């Protein structure tokens, strides 16, 4: 991120019912510098429209990964190239 840039490109991915509610599996966004954490990003997305607001209506049950590693809602997006949102996993 060059100093002074207001946004930077980030890939968002959605899985399972989060994907179904958002309506897309993947999208590229221009992340504003003001969106610093995963929780911030959930808030920012929820303000984008009813599909997002619905998908993130219960943020406590949403799990997130940054660059394919599990993170908490307080995690910083500073190094994020890919952010994923999904329900608790149910494999195995």
């Amino acid at each position, binding site marked *: 991120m060059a100093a002074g840039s207001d946004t930077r490109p980030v890939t968002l*991915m959605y*899985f399972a019912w989060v994907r179904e509610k958002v309506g897309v599996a993947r999208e590229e966004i221009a992340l504003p510098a003001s969106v610093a954490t995963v929780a911030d990003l959930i808030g920012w997305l929820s303000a984008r429209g009813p599909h997002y607001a619905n998908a993130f209506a219960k943020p406590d049950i949403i799990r997130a990964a940054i660059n394919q590693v*599990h993170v908490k809602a307080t995690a910083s997006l500073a190094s994020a190239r890919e952010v*994923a949102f999904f329900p608790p*996993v*149910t*494999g*195995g």
Partner: protein
Amino acid sequence: MTVRVQTEPFDVSAGIAAITMGRTDIGAIVTFTGTVRGEAHGKLLASMELEHYPGMTEAELVRVEAQAHTRWSLQDTLIIHRVGMLMPGEGIVLVVVASPHRHAAFEAASFLMDYLKTRAPFWKKETALDGSGGWVDARESDDAALARWNLPHS
């Protein structure tokens, strides 16, 4: 250490052979196979679809395996997890652990499953014979099962 994510069915004996063939230093081999149950919440299941997060799935399974090798004396491990459409009775996941000693093999296989169930990004969607269905909810018992291994926080 081997990890495979595949749509094809797996064979347990072939999985064992993959990590033990030609070796004579192994004393104990434990396998776990998770299968699709034909009934869920009182309804007969038509099929189950498994979604995953390509890339992260493999990375998590590799981390799961590495954790097990850190904690127990294991000669080799194999994890196969299927994705896509599965029918009742079919295998979902296979874990194979080879060790010199049986208790290490049992514990490591049990740990791998507990860890995998709460960390690996797979999601199950059920479709009942009556057409109803939906995403399977995570079970709190799975989190509790993982907690007993006293893992460091990630």
